[in-house]
Structures are given as C-alpha cells and as structure tokens.
C-alpha cells in the first residue's frame, strides 16, 4: 500500500514526529469551524431565496383572473386607423375552444354533439381528450365567431371558449413597412407598432384604444399599386415612394417595395425588404438641384435672370464634370434647371458659396435624424465640410446620401411658402403646425421654386410625368444617379429619383418616388428618371389627386400666373 490509510494518523504512537500532532489537531478544529462557517453562509443564501419567494408571493396577490387578463394572450393593442377612420391594424378576438373534462357529465353526449358541429375533430380524438379528470384541455384554437355560436348552442357543461387576441392587418401588405408588425406575444417588433410599444403604450399612462395615423389608406393603396406596377414595367429591383402633406408635414402614404405581409411576420425577414423611404440613404442625384437653386435664389446672390456659362465641362484637377443633356452654351437660371445642367448648377452654387450651400443643407433638415415615428431610420451621410469638388458634385446630388423622406420633407417645405415641417405619421393639430413650422426660405423664393418645378414639368426633364398627371398642375425634378459598385460608379445601373409637388398654384402635396435599377420599358424609351420614376409619380398623382379633392384645371392662365414678376417683364 503506497497510500496510507488516514485512520492510522489518529494513532499517535505510530507517528515518529509527535510535535506535529498538535498542529494536526488544530487543523482538524479549523476544518470543523470552516464547515460551520459554510453552513452559516448556506443558511444565509437559503434565507435570501426564501425571502425572494416571499417577495414574489406578496408582489402579486393570487388573483389568477387579473393575471390572465394582463397576460399577453389577451393583451389588447390599440386599433390603428387612417386619417379617414379606416382600420389599418386591429385586434381580432379568435375564440378558442377548450374543455374541462372533470366538469363534463356525459362524455358520449359531448363527443357526439361536438363532432356534429365540428366534423374536423374526430370522435376518437374528442373522446380521448374529454375522458379523464383534467382541468383544462384545448380542443381547437382560433375558431370563427359563427362556430363559437353553434358550439355554445349545444349547451354542453365543461365546454367553453377563451378569446385569444390576434393582430390583424386588413390591408395586407399595403402599409407593411409603415405599420410594421407584432410578434406572437402581440408586442410590436417593427414600424409604428414598435414605436407605439416604446413611446406610447407605457405602463404608467393609460393605453389608448384607437390611434389615428396621418396616412390615407386610399393614397397608400394607390401608391402601393402603382409602385408594384413599376417593378414589373421597368424590371426594377426595388421601388419606393412617400407623399407628404406640405401644409402639415403629415405623411399621406409611404410604400417601399419589395415588402411583406404583416399578417405573416416572418415574410419581413427576407433579404432586401428594408424600408427604403426611412431606413435607406441614397444619392438622390439631380433632385438636389431643387435644393441648390432654392438656397442660391434665397440668398439674393443669384437671381432667376442671371446667366451662367455651360459651354464646356468644369475641371477639377483630372476630373471633368459635364452635362447629360448638354446644351454647351450660356444658359439662363431656369434653363439650367430644366435641362438639368450640372455645369450650370456648379457655377450657380459657386456664385452662392460652398459654405452657404452646406449651411443650407443643415437648415433644410438633411443633417437631422428623421423625426418620423418609426424605429427604422437612418442618418444622412453628408461631409461636414465641403471641399471645392465635393461641393460641386453635391450641388447636383452626388457624394451625399439622404433618405427619400428627407427629400420629400425638404421639397414640401420649399413649395409651402418656405415653411418646413418635420414629417410625422400621426395626426397633427393646427397649433402643432404653427409651433413646429420653420421658415427656411422666403415666400418669394418659394414662388420661384414652384415656377421652376412647373417649368420643368411643362418643358424640361419631367414632361412624361406632366403628360400623365395633366390638369393637376404638377411639377417636379428628376434625379438619375449611377449606382456605386465596388467603389466605382457603373454607368448601366441607375438609381432614379423623382421629387414632385402638386398642384403648384396652391401646393398641397409633395411626393418622392425612387426606382432602383430600372430598365427601359421599350426600345424607344430611355432609362433616366423622367422615363420611370417620373412616370410613376405622374400615375400616382393622376390617381390620388381626385381622391384628395384636387380638381383638375387645364387653364394655361394658371401656369402663366406662376411665372415670377422678374421673368414676366422680360418675356413681354
């Protein structure tokens, strides 16, 4: 035996070193006291556990009904309505059938009668479920109210229903990105639903039963249908649009395709289904010229009557920026806008000053995070300070990315007599509008921008749109941006945008439409924004304007009235 039996250590006589004995005893006593110490610690911990149990016992007086009413099974969410009171999302109560076998008097009778009403439940299944002494068994989940009525008519003891709450979106995918969806526990996981959970449905305040959103279901549906059509028509990989009420900042409709069915939350997880209106930032191209023109004209440093040299491209080191629709002559300010001349816009911006331009972007809200009530938002990406070349490209919308909603709000502010309103998805009162409204440009400049947008529709890059939405006095600006792949611009893949407002004699709505990688509809058509994003915007306007009470007006005097005074004298 190499390992000594420890019991022998007690026999002191066998140990040669007697001196160690005392030490050993001391250690033995030490282990004993350490054991008692451990017992003490354990008792303290067990008391803590008991204390916690007592705390849990006190916390909730055992009222099962109250608890069940609060449990997620039946937790109610407010009904979401559009601005006309149409339901967008609502709770439906689905009656689920259960049995309490111990309360059933005659199993045979119950099986027979239930089977007659619910033939999908086999008699074997019912018998197996109903026999015995259990307190609760499910028979069938989420039946229709009609079925519930029939079962109740049977008058069987021990058979009852419990209402389970289910979120239902009657519009299907029409407002999917906007509304978002809920999880199995009825908690919002995206869109307005999630925003509500975070900011409105707090436990300390009373839960509203109805919430009215700013959107108009008719507009929403029309936009959804037209954008869906555009995906087919132009073989695009994505399309999105947003319409804003310029006088209130309320969002009338917001669609981003491809989208999902909020009734089937898992469908939101597929690739590429982000909300491009608020959670995607893009180079919106020449639509930015509207912003550049507004700022430059408002500064007083540039006038509509000014002329800029666009005979040849602008050179920055080894880069030359030239025009797409090149005129190669001296252009007036309205001509620069309607031909969408990059060169003219750069000269115009330079006459105004690059730092003024950068400050104006901030004033137009492009630097702010979107104030909209959605969790899915993305911040703009704009250089803090512009170099000469960065300012030049930014003047026609390249080298900076913003969300389409940023652009829609800015356009709305420009045409609304220069009063910018942050976008919202909720109803806004007149007092809030006065409080939130911010004068970003003068009403006179706003009138000039309206003229330029209308001019572009009648005689510029936006004529396709105008032809479709004729009579509703629309105006707009195209933006065709080459997409960046692996750090370079590729010329055959475009990201097209169109920013519009209507009716321009009394601006009410602003609209931004984007189409990602559109192809030519037919060999005769082009692939720039006027051919696709512009046409989609035109179709949306033609479809929603009558719904929104905008009467068509074909009188050319309306367009004449839009021409600012300084140009009118020149024409006459």
């Amino acid at each position, binding site marked *: 035996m190499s390992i000594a*039996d420890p019991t022998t250590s007690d026999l002191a006589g066998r140990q040669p070193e007697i001196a160690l004995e005392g030490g050993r005893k001391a250690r033995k006593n030490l282990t004993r006291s350490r054991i008692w110490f451990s017992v003490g610690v354990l008792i303290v911990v067990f008391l803590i556990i008991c204390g916690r149990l007592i705390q849990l016992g006190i916390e*909730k007086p055992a009222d099962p009904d109250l608890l069940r009413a609060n449990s997620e099974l039946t937790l109610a969410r407010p009904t979401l309505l559009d601005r006309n009171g149409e339901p967008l999302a609502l709770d439906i109560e689905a009656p689920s059938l259960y049995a309490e076998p111990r309360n059933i008097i005659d199993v045979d009778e119950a099986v027979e009668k239930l089977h007659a009403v619910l033939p999908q439940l086999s008699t074997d299944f019912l018998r197996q479920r109903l026999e015995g002494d259990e307190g609760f068994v499910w028979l069938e989940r989420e039946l229709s109210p009609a079925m519930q009525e029939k079962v109740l008519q049977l008058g069987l003891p021990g058979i009852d229903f419990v209402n389970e709450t289910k979120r239902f979106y009657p519009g299907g995918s029409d407002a999917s990105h906007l509304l978002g969806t809920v999880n199995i526990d009825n908690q919002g996981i995206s869109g307005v639903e999630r925003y509500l959970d975070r900011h409105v449905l707090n436990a300390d305040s009373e839960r509203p039963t109805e919430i009215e959103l700013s959107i108009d279901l008719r507009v929403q549906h029309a936009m959804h249908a037209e954008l869906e059509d555009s995906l087919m028509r132009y073989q695009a990989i994505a399309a999105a649009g947003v319409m804003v009420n310029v006088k209130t900042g309320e969002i009338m409709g917001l669609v981003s395709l491809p989208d999902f069915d909020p009734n089937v939350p898992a469908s939101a997880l597929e690739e590429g289904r982000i909300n491009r209106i608020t959670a995607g930032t893009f180079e919106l191209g020449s639509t930015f010229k509207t912003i550049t023109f507004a700022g430059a004209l408002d500064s007083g440093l540039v006038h509509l009557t000014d002329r800029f040299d666009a005979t040849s491209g602008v050179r920055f080191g080894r880069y030359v920026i030239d025009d797409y629709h090149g005129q190669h002559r001296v252009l007036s300010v309205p001509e620069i806008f309607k031909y969408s001349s990059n060169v003219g816009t750069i000269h115009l911006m330079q006459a105004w000053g690059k730092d003024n331009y950068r400050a104006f972007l901030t004033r137009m809200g492009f630097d702010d995070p979107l104030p909209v009530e959605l969790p899915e938002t993305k911040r703009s990406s704009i250089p803090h300070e512009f170099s000469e070349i960065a300012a030049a490209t930014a003047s026609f919308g390249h080298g900076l990315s913003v969300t389409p909603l940023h652009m829609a709000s800015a356009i709305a502010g420009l045409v609304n007599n220069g009063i910018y309103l942050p976008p919202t998805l909720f109803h806004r009162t007149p007092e809030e509008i006065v409080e939130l409204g911010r004068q970003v440009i003068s009403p006179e400049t706003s009138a000039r921008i309206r003229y330029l947008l209308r001019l572009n529709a009648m005689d510029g890059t936006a004529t396709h749109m105008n032809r479709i939405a004729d009579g509703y006095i629309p105006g707009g600006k195209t933006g065709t941006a080459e997409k960046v792949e692996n750090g370079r611009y590729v010329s055959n893949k475009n990201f097209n945008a169109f920013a519009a407002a209507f009716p321009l004699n009394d601006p009410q709505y602003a609209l931004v439409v984007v189409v990602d990688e559109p192809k030519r509809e037919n060999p005769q058509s082009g692939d720039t924004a006027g051919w696709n994003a512009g046409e989609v915007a035109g179709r949306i306007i033609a479809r929603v304007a009558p719904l929104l009470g905008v009467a068509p007006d074909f009188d050319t005097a309306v367009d004449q009235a839009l021409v600012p005074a300084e140009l009118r004298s020149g024409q006459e």
Partner: protein
Amino acid sequence: MFSRAQKTPLVEWWFTVDRTLLAAILLLMMFGMGLSFAASPPVAERLGYGQWYFTIRHFLFLFPAIGVMLGTSLMTLRQIRWTALAVLIVSIGLLALTLKFGVEIKGARRWLLIFGTSVQPSEFVKPAFAVIIAWLFAEHMQKPDMPARLIAFAILATILSLLMMQPDFGQTVLITLTFAAVLFISGISWWLIMGFGVAAAALSTGAYALFPHVARRVDLFLNPESIGNYQVNKALQSLLEGGWFGQGPGEAIVRRYVPDAHADFVFSAAAGEFGILFSMLLVFVIGFVVVRALWGAQQRSNIFARLAISALALQFGMQAIINLMVNLSLLPPKGMTLPFVSYGGTSMIATAFGMGMVLSLTRRKPEERQISGLPAFRGAVTS
C-alpha cells in the same frame, strides 16, 4: 430484517446510516417526481413526444438512481475512494471523447450517445472530482511532502479545459466552486482566499469577454427589458401566477410557455401549479439535505471523510442554489439543473452516486465497523 441479532452488512448499514438524511433525499426525489408531473407535459408536447414522455422517463430513472445511491452507501471508506477514482478516470476519458464524438445540442458538445441513450459525462465528473480532491487534500494535510496539491491542481486544470472546450460554463463554475470549497474547508488562510477571490473575478470577466454566449446571458440579465430575456420573464410570470397556494394541478397557464420547463426551469414552472409555499418547502428540504450532510461531516474524525462529505454536500448545495437563484432571476441563466428534481437521467444517477457517497461516509464510524469485524487499522497493519 434489520434485527441486530446477526451482523449482516445490511443490518450494519441500517444502524449506522444517517436515516434522517436518507429520508430527506428520498423526499426530495418524490418532490422531483411531483414537479415533473406539473412542468414537463407542455415541453414534451411541444417537442412532439407524448404528453407524459418526460414524466415517465423521470420515474424510470428513479430506480437506477435509488439503486446506485443505496449501493454506494453500502461501500466502505476505502471502496468509496477507489470507486471515485475509477469513476473520475472513466468520466474524464468520456469527457475528452465528447469533443470528438459528442452529439451537438444547442451549440455545445456535452453528450455522448452510448447504446442509444445520451450520457453527459460531466455529470459524473462532479461527484468523483469532489471526492478525489478531498482525498488529495487530506493526504496533503497528513503528509505535506506529498505533491498532492499539485496533482489536485492538475486534475482541476484538465477538467476545466475539457469543459471549456465543450463549452459548458455552468459545470466549469461548479467544478471551480467545488475545488474552492475543499480548499476553504481544508483550512487555507484568509489571505489566500482573498487572492482566489480576485482570480475568480478575473476568470469570470474573462469568460464574459471570451465566450459570446456567456456575455449574452449576462447582458440579458442586466438588461431585463430586452425581448431576448424570454426564459427569465416567463419563469417569473409562472411564479407570480402560482401565488401562495398555486393554481392546482393542470390549471397553470404560464408554465406552458416556460422554456426548458422540465429541466433548468422546473422550479418556477411547477410553482405555477403548486404555489410559493410549496416551493419554499422544497427549498427547505434541499437546504436540510445540505446542512444535515455538513453536520455529519463535522462529526467525522477522519479528515478525508470530513473533506469529502463537505465537498459533496457543498457541491450539491451550490448547484441547487445557483439553479434556484436563476429561477428567481437573482442570477443570470447558466444551464444548471436542480439536483434530483430537474429532468435528466445522467444528472439524476450521478447525483445519486454523490449522495450515496455522502451517506456512506456519514455512517457512524464506518471505518471501525468493517464487515469482518476486525479493527479499523487492519489496513495499516497489513500494509
């Protein structure tokens, strides 16, 4: 049967074993059975087995468990040591095999498939490790010149590295705590204890930094608002639903939604039906088993027996405490079962083996009552 007229091993056993402790353990097993009736049917149904799948298996596992426990409790001190050593060697070997041949469940390789049943070797490592470490430290206290501590540390390092490769954070913690407990009981100085405390803090910070699943659990615990804290929320809801007296058998609703209701969260899942008072009774029984075993430990004059019992009892107690605290959301989720109560065949039999050793070692002077009736120092005489 238990007449003292004849000195059969069984009679020896009956009159020397701590019958109170034995009764408490059997009572705990009964409670486990009862809780299984409440907590496992929803899980079994969810997993597509029959409603009583886990309950029936739990019941069937009780027989080998009780058999192992009683069998082990019949052993002598020396047999305990060698059995523990054998179990430790075999289970460390199996532990190493899990890394290569293990079945991967939920991202960890902890199980081996042997004859169609899955076995978790780390469960057997725990009690065997406790006994062997106690043995080594007892040797060290009597013969300081033996490198017993070094061997103990080497065994610890081997097991910990194998466990971390699985990875199994819960068992790693428990093995480390067991080792610390033996160190503590064996009488290391308070200064060293403080040093180890600092090292433990550093280790847990390291675990947080190195293992994403540990970090996630801790984050979720510290930030209970997040949706991902589903398990803990449901567990608490189930406790609240039960109230003092419970909803009664088959009546609780929340337990249906408690994940792992048959295993880690059996305590809170069953509380919905049985109520908080019953849960406190269960906590009391667990506490009684641990304290009773420790009381038995301090009565032993044999230093090895004393250390081994303490190590086994504290291991049992700490595992139960961690599980209970997780259930009551006093600690972040760990993946620790409630001994004798949670579902799990390996766990139950291994715990029974550990408790069997406690029962054996707490037998009144088992060293002087060997079967032959010869004096206890016979081994020493013959060596």
